[in-house]
């Protein structure tokens, strides 16, 4: 592979790649993101490969394993180009039919298509409601490229923005454009990236660093992973543009060890860039030198905080430090270091290519561009969605997410992960951007959006986040270490039915203290999930405390399983399935839960045939006494 020594070399390479691709040639693309991978997309891809071989079609038809398409609910996803026929939930058994019917016979297999609400099948990916309402600027190329092929990326205009920056712009010009675009950090805080870059550029020191934060630790959020897995070059190109603007020659990618595919694809991308001379000395024949090191994180949520992450890169324990001096001034080895998250970096080439004005035309007054969310939980269409900032929550959950699973009632949506809060139904029309979410007591965070229905207990969710944070707090500062523990003690007793009248005030006091006194954002924002649930669902807390009742039927200590003798048909199914033998009864004798033995695992409720529906959860009421000696089924 010849090294690219000038802009002309890059453009010649691009022309060659485009010319070598016949747009009318059939190509099978298979989503190989982690979601589809979990649905065995690799097997589907392998079956395609052997089927094409067997039918002697390997030369005629291309096969491409792409990054994540986003519609994880219906994976594995197969899209056939050039007609862009989209098949969902494809199994290895479907493969030979797809090859003979669709690829050879040019016929569409209706059973594999998406079926709209009107019962009509939809052939093209972009017409499916899940995709139709999105604007996929950052995430869109995932479906078109093989993430392990730099040629695919270059063929779609990759590294064009880098060329423009190196040959037509000064570092100051670049910072000006990013500032004007008002690109705000996608990792959580929403700090303007351009201002951070400028601070790092102006900070004294010769050696400076740029870093990609791919330590995505929020449970329920996986957009950074999918982006890094699916389009690693877009992140690396953004990083290089930032390095040029800031005056850095060394970059780091801090990526979680738990993301093996992301680690692999980034590694491959870096190798390919080196081979083409896009990393190393005198890039594209200019005076710009740059290289990147991948640092795998070994599993610590707190290490996603900027100062902690930089300490971890130095090979030490990743704990935060007080930031009287910003990491932009004193970061890795005390040198100016600029950290941005994966999605932020990925936006940079787009802004350079299309201009600040274009970027500013998308989104709201204070939040420009798009944002990728992971829409998960009790929603019909689980997946990754990219929408312009300012889209109302309702549109995201109902138009894109297809509403709530199983026709249940919407209760709340949690955004911002362990640092965020819940948003109730009354605020569903809230336009989603950095400022509106903060005003509502939540935050954007990295973009997790967890939908909850009536069967979710918000007290339990608040306890869940605190439990997570208690585990992840590094323990360096007392407000966080002890504050989370004490809040957890209070929440545990509320969930166990021993809550006290003054508990809500205690939680508020502890929360205030932590917001003011904790060392880093982990501790400062830890009370958010608790305080925002109290703000919007105070009655639910009070039910737990005063009436020992969990209205959603989640908190184990507050519920009992009960078999309605009027409905039980004595079919023995629950008796046989109960793992602890806590069900009494027999053939023709109505079954009864022995409360003393019951571990409340819920198996009886799950296995009771829906046509009987005899098992239910009771909370806050007396359990009716069972008739002595058992009653016969009527």
């Amino acid at each position: 592979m010849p090294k690219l020594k000038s802009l002309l070399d890059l453009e010649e390479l691009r022309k060659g790649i485009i010319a070598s691709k016949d747009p009318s040639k059939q190509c099978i693309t298979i989503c190989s993101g982690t979601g589809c991978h979990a649905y065995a997309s690799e097997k589907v891809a392998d079956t395609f490969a052997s089927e094409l071989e067997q039918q002697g079609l390997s030369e005629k038809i291309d096969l491409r394993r792409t990054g994540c398409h986003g519609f994880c609910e219906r994976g594995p996803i197969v899209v056939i180009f050039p007609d862009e026929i989209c098949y969902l939930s494809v199994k290895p058994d479907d493969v030979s039919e797809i090859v003979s019917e669709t690829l050879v016979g040019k016929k569409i297999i209706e059973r594999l298509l998406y079926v709209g609400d009107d019962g009509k099948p939809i052939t093209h990916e972009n017409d499916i409601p899940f995709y139709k309402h999105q604007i996929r600027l950052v995430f869109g190329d995932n479906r078109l490229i093989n993430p392990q092929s730099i040629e695919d990326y270059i063929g779609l205009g990759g590294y064009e923005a880098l060329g423009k920056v190196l040959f037509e712009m000064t570092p100051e010009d670049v910072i000006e454009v990013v500032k004007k675009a008002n690109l705000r950090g996608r990792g959580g805080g929403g700090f303007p990236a351009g201002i951070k870059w400028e601070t790092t550029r102006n900070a004294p020191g010769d050696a400076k660093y740029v870093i990609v934060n791919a330590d995505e630790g929020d449970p329920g959020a996986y957009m950074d992973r999918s982006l890094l897995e699916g389009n690693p070059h877009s992140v690396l190109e953004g990083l290089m543009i930032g390095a040029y603007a800031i005056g850095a020659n060394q970059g780091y990618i801090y990526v979680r060890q738990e993301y093996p595919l992301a680690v692999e694809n980034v590694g491959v991308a870096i190798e390919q860039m080196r081979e083409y001379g896009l990393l190393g000395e005198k890039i594209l024949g200019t005076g710009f030198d740059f290289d990147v090191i991948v640092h795998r994180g070994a599993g610590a949520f707190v290490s996603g905080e900027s100062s902690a992450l930089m300490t971890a890169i130095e090979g030490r324990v990743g704990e935060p430090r007080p930031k009287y001096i910003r990491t932009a001034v004193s970061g890795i080895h005390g040198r100016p270091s600029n950290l941005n998250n994966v999605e932020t970096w990925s936006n940079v080439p787009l802004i350079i290519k299309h201009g600040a004005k274009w970027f500013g035309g998308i989104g709201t007054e204070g939040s420009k561009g798009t944002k990728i969310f992971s829409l998960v939980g009790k929603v019909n269409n689980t997946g990754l969605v990219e929408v312009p900032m300012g889209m109302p929550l309702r549109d995201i959950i109902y138009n894109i997410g297809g509403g709530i699973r199983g026709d249940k009632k919407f209760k709340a949506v949690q955004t911002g992960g362990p640092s965020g809060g819940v948003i109730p139904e009354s605020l569903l029309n809230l336009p989603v951007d950095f400022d509106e979410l903060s005003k509502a007591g939540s935050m954007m965070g990295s973009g997790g959006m967890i939908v909850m229905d009536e069967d979710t207990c918000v007290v339990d969710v608040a306890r869940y986040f605190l439990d997570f944070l208690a585990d992840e707090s590094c323990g360096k500062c007392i407000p966080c270490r002890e504050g989370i523990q004490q809040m957890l003690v209070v929440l545990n007793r509320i969930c166990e039915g021993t809550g006290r009248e003054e508990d809500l005030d205690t939680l508020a006091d502890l929360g205030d203290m932590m917001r003011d006194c904790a060392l880093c954002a982990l501790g400062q924002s830890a009370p958010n999930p608790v305080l925002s649930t109290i703000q919007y669902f105070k009655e639910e807390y009070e039910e737990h405390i005063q009436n020992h009742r969990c209205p959603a039927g989640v908190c184990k200590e507050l519920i009992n399983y009960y078999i309605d003798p009027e409905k039980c048909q004595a079919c023995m199914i629950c008796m046989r399935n109960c793992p602890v033998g806590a069900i009494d009864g027999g053939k023709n004798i109505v079954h009864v839960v022995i409360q003393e033995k019951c571990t409340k695992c819920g198996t009886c409720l799950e296995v009771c045939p829906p046509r009987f529906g005899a098992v239910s959860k009771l909370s806050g009421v007396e359990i009716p006494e069972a008739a002595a000696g058992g009653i016969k089924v009527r």
Partner: protein
Amino acid sequence: MEQQDLSKVDEIIDKYESNSESLIQILLDVQNEYRWLSRPILSQVCERLDIPMTHAYHIATFYKHFSLLPQGRHPISVCLGTACHVRGATRLLDRVVQAIGIEPGQTTPDEKFTLNTVNCLGCCALGPALVVDGEYRSNLNAKELADIVASAD
């Protein structure tokens, strides 16, 4: 206890040119190779990198990925991410505990299974999910779990 073969430890350290700044990366590779960090392994690493043992233990106990105890041949990770949590991850975890008879963080005495919990596997559409031997599975019931236990060697 039989002597551990530490030659792979040396190979890994050589790959990182005995750079003590790469300690976390070295320990990650060693953990992946040996499935745990034994005392002989850690002392070898510290000797080669010329760092105190306390430093290595600090790292090995701070980060979740490291284990100071032998791990089972079949790791099971139950996802407790938020999406899985609201879809019943706790009940799934209860079923797993029931099926293999150990609590999270423990290894079965025959070193067959190690049970762990993780905070989001990033396959929220499958939730509640778990990974067994690298394979992602969705909301397994008691019978499916029993089959996994029976078929593991």
